[in-house]
């Protein structure tokens, strides 16, 4: 009799606790992936490191050899050295990541080829294709760029807002199955990488959703074929009516801004010797 009373009491306590606890629900994992994963290529720094577009035996020198072999005036290598060069080590991160990321999304992946007696390895063909997209036409998606290296507190530093990163992943990668680009550094350095997949899991307590999202980016690798990649995991909370809050390590390690390339332009920043016609003739691709 006493045992039965104890069991009944324990049951009542447990049910009461369950009812009194805040509502909590786990959302199922969600996965998104684009139809085409942007190809890996190199980011071609401006600071001389032996792996530059203007390096001897590099993409521009071979392109010049092709120009000469086809009776066209050369000068791509010297133009590149004059216009896309820095000797300031503080700017060691300056390069062509934005151009590679654009080319990786919009252009088919080039492969090594020999044209008119000039052997272009995979870095060379990806280098000249990347150069075509130095000034891509683009649409700004969200976030304010941070240019002050000491800025760790401004609204620009705190964005891209979690709500918008979350939405863009779902909208582009999951719904459209189309990649976009994010600068992964919250601070003043700019490192643009194509986004092509994510995994998202969350729990909801009350009206706050606690989210853990892993995002996959194509990586800028040397001698790469296909898609090499890396991932970053972001944590944040979302609440209706707000732009969300970064949490944990993501407070200081989150994307700065997002954009999407829509094409290429022939602006003054693009090497004028690198033409679509020649790149197509060399790669055999419609770029």
């Amino acid at each position, binding site marked *: 009799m006493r045992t039965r009373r104890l069991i009944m009491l324990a049951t009542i306590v447990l049910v009461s606790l369950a009812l009194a606890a805040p509502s909590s629900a786990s959302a199922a994992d969600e996965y998104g992936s684009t139809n085409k994963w942007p190809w890996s290529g190199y980011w071609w720094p401006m600071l001389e490191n032996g792996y530059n577009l203007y390096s001897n035996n590099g993409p521009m020198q071979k392109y010049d050899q092709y120009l000469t072999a086809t009776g066209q005036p050369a000068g791509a290598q010297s133009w590149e050295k004059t216009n896309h060069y820095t000797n300031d080590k503080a700017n060691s991160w300056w390069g062509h990541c*934005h151009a590679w990321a654009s080319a990786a999304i919009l252009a088919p992946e080039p492969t090594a080829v020999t044209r008119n007696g000039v052997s272009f390895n995979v870095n060379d063909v990806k280098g000249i294709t990347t150069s075509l997209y130095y000034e891509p036409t683009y649409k700004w998606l969200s976030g304010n760029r941070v240019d002050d290296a000491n800025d760790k507190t401004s609204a620009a530093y705190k964005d891209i807002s979690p709500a918008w990163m979350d939405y863009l992943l779902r909208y582009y990668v999951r719904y459209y199955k189309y990649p976009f680009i994010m600068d992964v550094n919250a601070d003043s350095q*700019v490192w*643009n990488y194509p986004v092509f997949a994510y995994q998202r899991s969350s729990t909801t307590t009350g009206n706050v959703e606690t989210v853990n999202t892993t995002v996959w980016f194509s990586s800028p690798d040397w001698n790469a074929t296909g898609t090499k990649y890396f991932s970053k995991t972001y944590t944040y909370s979302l609440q209706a009516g707000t732009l969300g809050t970064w949490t944990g390590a993501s407070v200081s390690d989150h994307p700065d801004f997002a954009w999407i390339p829509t094409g290429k332009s022939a602006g003054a*920043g693009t090497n004028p010797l690198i033409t679509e016609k020649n790149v197509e003739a060399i790669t055999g691709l419609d770029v």
Partner: protein
Amino acid sequence: MHSSRTRIIAGIAIFAVALGATLLVASNRGGAASKDSSPAAKGAGQRDGGTPIAPLSIGGWDVKIGDTWAVNVTQDAGGITPDGASKLVKIPYRFEVTGVPGPESDIVSMHVAQDGAEGPFANGWNLQYQVKGATLVLSTVAMGEDKALEAELAAIVLGQDFPYEVAYTKRPAPTTTYAQDKLIARSALPPQQALPKGDGSNGAVPPSGAPSVPPSDLPSQM
């Protein structure tokens, strides 16, 4: 029992009644001259029988299907390059009126194509403007033939700020920078203050409604 002659007469009579009813319904059908915002809708601004619709007049511009103009937009690649050095280039956006209001519509449809656009952007954008007095107010934007989004959302998820509220005082010049400030400025539609609405209430396909890919389609964890 009917004779075959009676059946033929009855068949002809039924056919005639059906044909008449169809024509009656067709002649009474109103609505926008062209709600189809695709370029293929060009020339749809006529009612049955080829009667042209009176042009919509906004300010001094008689808006007609097929009206075209280009807006040269200055873009600064310095926004995305690591060195941030300003690099300005003019990019033409080519507008074409593809639909004008009919008796039951106040929508002007336009197609916009960007010079040099590639991939899915090569199909341009389809815009719908609502006529409000002497102004056109952007209501929806669709990328190519995709589902249209409300303008506020499109300004962010499509990254495109088209002229939002424009009081045309004359027909746009063939090439102009008339609306450039509205194309590149975000003052009319502040994206940073806007909130995403994933429930579809603003025209977006709810992202959560899109199917997940199987986990095996993801890259392996690193």
